[in-house]
């Protein structure tokens, strides 16, 4: 597959702070690539360098095999576009917001009218042309920003946390649009996110960015499924527990985490350990269910987050657990904040960090 963006030894230093440290990365044509990392890991800076709106302190970037420099930077900018995390809109109508980039590219009024109409339909905001962009809801504003980027039909679409701080309904619309656009137009996309679920469902490859360095790179399965020290240091990793581990006669270990909670793990390690359990590996039930799973906890749902086809529950069971179940199960079980539930997971689902 052809390489669209090639980053070689890219570093970015602000005063005494190194935001990016010797990044080497290839973005392939037509792929959806995610930059996964906690806040402050350098994701936005890296995206801005790819968008040619930030210059690296050292290193070089090639676009379609050509080195980006002062002479061709404006041409490269016309082939990429970026959607910002904090929705940035011009203080004018939705139409003029979307038309701006098209006018810079010399489209006629008729072509602009058609394109605006088409992209607004894509993001399900038909008829919004005349509305003042800044008076829309947060989710709608982000959809306008996405429509504005899609209208340009660039080779590369860079998205900085495109679904942060917006409601689940708008999140699912944006994710669906991105997924469809990539399939239909084969647009190369780079998505910066701290949401592991998004990285897993939307993308072909993931780079784990920590402290300005690429810690790991691979398929979502390789990065997210296996135990990894790097992944553990990612601040948003859920269900991370530390405690004293004792090896049992059966060969497994029991880890005593705080507040008298004990987790059984299929490991042979004693002493201080840190483990994690993936949210989708935990079974939720309203009653205890007989099973081979070694860990069962009773708790109360304290928070529900809707992610379209799946729902994430935050359950207080002495320790806080994050659990991921399908929307259908959530509805059928008639769960809500305050519901009492049992959490069940196997000892082999407990991964050592």
């Amino acid at each position, binding site marked *: 597959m052809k390489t669209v963006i090639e980053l070689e030894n890219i570093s970015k230093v602000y005063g005494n702070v190194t935001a990016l440290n010797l990044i080497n990365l290839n973005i392939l044509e037509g792929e959806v690539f995610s930059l996964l990392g906690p806040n402050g890991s350098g994701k936005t800076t890296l995206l*801005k360098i790819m*968008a*040619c*709106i930030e210059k690296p302190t050292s290193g070089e970037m090639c676009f379609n095999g050509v080195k980006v420099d002062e002479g061709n930077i*404006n041409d490269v*900018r*016309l082939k*990429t*576009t*970026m959607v*910002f995390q*904090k929705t*940035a809109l*011009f*203080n004018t109508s939705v139409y003029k917001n979307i038309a*701006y*980039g098209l006018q*810079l*590219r010399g489209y006629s009024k008729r072509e602009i009218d058609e394109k605006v109409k088409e992209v607004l339909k894509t993001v399900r905001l038909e008829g919004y042309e005349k509305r*003042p962009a800044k008076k829309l809801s947060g989710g709608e504003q982000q959809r306008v920003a996405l429509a*504005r980027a899609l209208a*340009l039909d660039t080779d590369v679409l*860079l998205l900085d946390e495109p679904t942060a701080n917006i409601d689940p309904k708008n999140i699912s619309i944006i994710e669906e649009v991105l997924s469809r656009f990539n399939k239909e137009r084969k647009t190369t996309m780079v998505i910066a996110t701290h949401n592991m679920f998004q990285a897993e469902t939307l993308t072909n490859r993931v780079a784990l960015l920590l402290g300005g360095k690429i810690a790991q790179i691979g398929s979502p399965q390789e990065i997210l499924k296996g135990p990894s020290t790097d992944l553990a240091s990612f601040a948003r990793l859920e269900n991370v527990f530390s405690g004293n581990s004792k090896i049992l006669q059966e060969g497994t270990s029991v880890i005593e985490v705080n507040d008298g909670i004990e987790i059984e793990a299929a490991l042979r390690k004693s002493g201080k350990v840190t483990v994690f359990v993936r949210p989708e590996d935990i079974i939720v039930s309203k009653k205890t269910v007989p099973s081979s799973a070694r860990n069962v906890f009773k708790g109360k749902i304290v928070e529900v987050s809707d992610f379209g086809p799946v729902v994430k529950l935050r359950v207080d069971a002495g320790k806080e657990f994050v659990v991921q179940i399908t929307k259908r199960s959530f509805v059928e079980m008639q769960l809500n904040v305050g519901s009492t539930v049992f959490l069940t997971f196997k000892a082999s689902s407990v991964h050592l960090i």
Partner: protein
Amino acid sequence: MGNEIIDGFIKAFQLILSGDPTVMEISGRSILISSSATMLSVLWGLPVASILGLKRFRGRFLLKGFFNAMLGIPTVALGLILYLFFSNAGPIGFLHLLYSPPAIIIGQAILITPITVSFITSAIESIDPEIKDLAKTLGASEIEASIAVLKESMNGVVLAITASFNRAIAELGVVLMVGGNIAGFTSVLTTTIALETNKGNIELSIALAIILLLIVSVLSISINLIQRRRT
């Protein structure tokens, strides 16, 4: 005394409503001179404010501080400096501008430049810095992105221009020093009000003061209404 004031107001309204030629001539000249001065200050103030608001360079802070400090310049002092420049013995005395409308225009323009520059700079700085990046990522060049930021700050820019005009038309010190209040040539609203009051011609002074207040108020309200309709 009370009756004299009431009489003054009645006669003033009569002067305005009858379209008194002196009142109309002085008002027209004031608007023309102050509009020209405002245009001149925008002509050189807008590029300076754009650079101060959009670029980061060594000495920027000092330059901004200078324009902010000049907001409070004593107008008589500025008038005296300009008088010395324009007088026959001064460096540009050969242009024979003293006591002419162009001298008032230049004087007012210099006086209001700190308002134009400081207010427009603030308006540009208040725009989200991501707007410039946004324009660039949509394909704009450096200059096109700067124009996009200026467009975003248009409300603030219009407000700065309005404030500059209001300051210019209300100015007395500089105008008196370099214009001299020559009847039918350099007399404007403020200088005529000051001198006619001293002469006891109170009704003309009140009529001109009402017109001055009307110009300033109507302009400010109109700008406000236009901006409200735009957003």
